[in-house]
């Protein structure tokens, strides 16, 4: 079986597994809630099952491109940095966390020009402060500075 097809097979199997798990949970749901939930989950299960079947039947025919694990490295690292950023916002506040993470992301992406980095950070934070804090009156997570 071609690797692109195996990927689809795995996606289909995961969908079917999640569908069955959720379907079992509906046993205690009341009347219309149970009816609608089951209709949706049956649709989900059928589509998952069709994906599994088409992957098995067309296993050797050219299909979706193979996705390599190495393609995930940089995007997942970016995701981790954003996750750290969100945790930092929760702990030390939005502006301090942003002032640290924005240049860090630029450096991570391979950018090395300090003036545009500083200008972008200050400019974006200034824009956010003006728009969200002074105009929209959004209460940002408690900050060390503000």
């Amino acid at each position, binding site marked *: 079986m071609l690797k692109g097809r195996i990927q689809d097979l795995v996606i289909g199997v995961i969908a079917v597994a999640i569908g069955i798990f959720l379907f079992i949970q509906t046993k205690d749901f009341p009347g219309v809630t149970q009816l609608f939930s089951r209709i949706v989950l049956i649709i989900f299960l059928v589509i998952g099952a069709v994906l599994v079947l088409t992957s098995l039947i067309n296993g050797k025919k050219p299909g979706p491109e193979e996705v390599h694990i190495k393609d995930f490295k940089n995007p997942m*690292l970016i995701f981790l940095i954003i996750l750290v*950023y969100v945790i930092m916002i929760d702990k030390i506040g939005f502006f301090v966390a942003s002032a640290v993470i924005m240049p860090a992301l630029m450096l991570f992406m*391979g950018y090395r020009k300090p003036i545009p980095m500083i200008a972008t950070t200050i400019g974006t934070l200034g824009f956010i402060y003006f728009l969200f804090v002074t105009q929209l009156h959004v209460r940002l997570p408690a900050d060390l500075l503000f």
Partner: protein
Amino acid sequence: MTIWEGISQAFAHLFTLQAALGLVIGVVGGMIIGALPGLSATMGIALLIPITYGMDQTAAILMMAAIYTSAVYGGSISAILIHTPGTPSSAATCLDGYPMTQKGEALHAIGLSTTASVIGGIISAIALLLIAPPLARLSLNFQAPEYFLIAFFGLTLIGSLASGNMLKGLLAGAIGLVVGLIGLSPEVYARFTFGNFKLNGGIDLIPAMIGLFSISQVMVLGEERGKHSSTVKEEAVIQGRFLPPAKEFVGLLPLILECSVVGVFIGILPGAGGDIASWVGLNLAKNQSKHKELFGTGIPEGVAAPEAANNAVTGGALIPLLTLGIPGSSTAAVMLGGLTIHGLNPGFELFSKFAGITYAVIIGFLVANILMGLVGWAAGRYLTKVSKVPIPILLPCIAMLSIIGAYATKQNMFTVYVCLIFGLLGFLMRKYGIPTAPVVLALILGPMADEQIYQGTMQAAGMGGITFFQYMMSRPICLVLLGLIVLGLFSPLISKLISKSYKKKYGEVGEAAEDI
């Protein structure tokens, strides 16, 4: 209420500082987003919805509509100057737009694109003004079964939002439906919340959309790490005259008008968007030309026709959205979310109770198209400079705006984590060829269908114990809607055939931007 009464009410809503700012920000912002390959109107609107929370309803919806039309136009500028369509709607423009640039007529090509886009947009705004109100009157007769079928009809469009593999598009829609189940059901039963009371209200649409469209895009841009690239390939020499000569304009006008009308019609059709309209427009131009062999060498007709058609789609697409709540494209789906968040439910109410706001948005949309022409005339040539912003600078800005946008939804960190989860989900879906737009559509329409099936069942029970299905089949409008649903089910097939035949005829163009 007549159209004139609606228009007279609109001015009070339109002539405010907020509405004017919304209009200008929408036009300029949309143009920038459209010109940046990889960023789409859909993502732009998703990212900017949180900014509209503090705005009044007119300004907020007007800004979204302005972004929509302006981004479609902005996409043509990068198509003409750097042979990279900023949005999928501009792919056909590359064929003659870029050869014009190579011939040293870049500014002329941008001028043609601007003129045709403005005319297409204005005609679509007029069509919106004339067609939407009578169509909305139809919805006066709607009850739970009709609304259920409307939601169901919307769900049949999922196939058309799946640009590639239909099965994966349906899977995406099903994921959206399942996610839409989370939270209190209409019977007030906590469904799939697993004891977490924060999930009782369901998954918030805005953080989910920001995650699916923006955070996933940040992760995709992360693949460019260390490449020191900007989104632009090469800079064109921009010279020549902007406005087309009077003789050329008069010669092109019938074609522009024809393509505009065709574009409006395609926009109204569910599932057929700006990309199809631009190819149909180009084909119209070629069929009517005495010099078919010159297409692809850089001729004005090849730029004017697709650009008139794709901008005419925007107003056309707003017609079913505002009157029946049917979003025919991913951008329209996000706009539906925006309308709902501002307490505006599509249908007759928009043209009666909220007539002032709705007519203000329609007139403002017309003004946005004119303003788009003026801004394009003044700044179009400089827009490639925007495309030169390096990805390492762009990426943290999008990331930060996404996070603050998600936070602003409820002003708590829970929505930010929801946004992150959907960002990761969106990225994985995109990597494995599963489109993200159907998730949003299903997330909006699933709970609507859920609510209506519950209401309908209650109403049917009060009618002598008939079932919901019997109740539905006893109503004539439901039968018409069922016919439309059958049509909707086949529309992706028809759209695909049209699109395939044109692409085969003209070949693939540039790096077609992904419809995110």
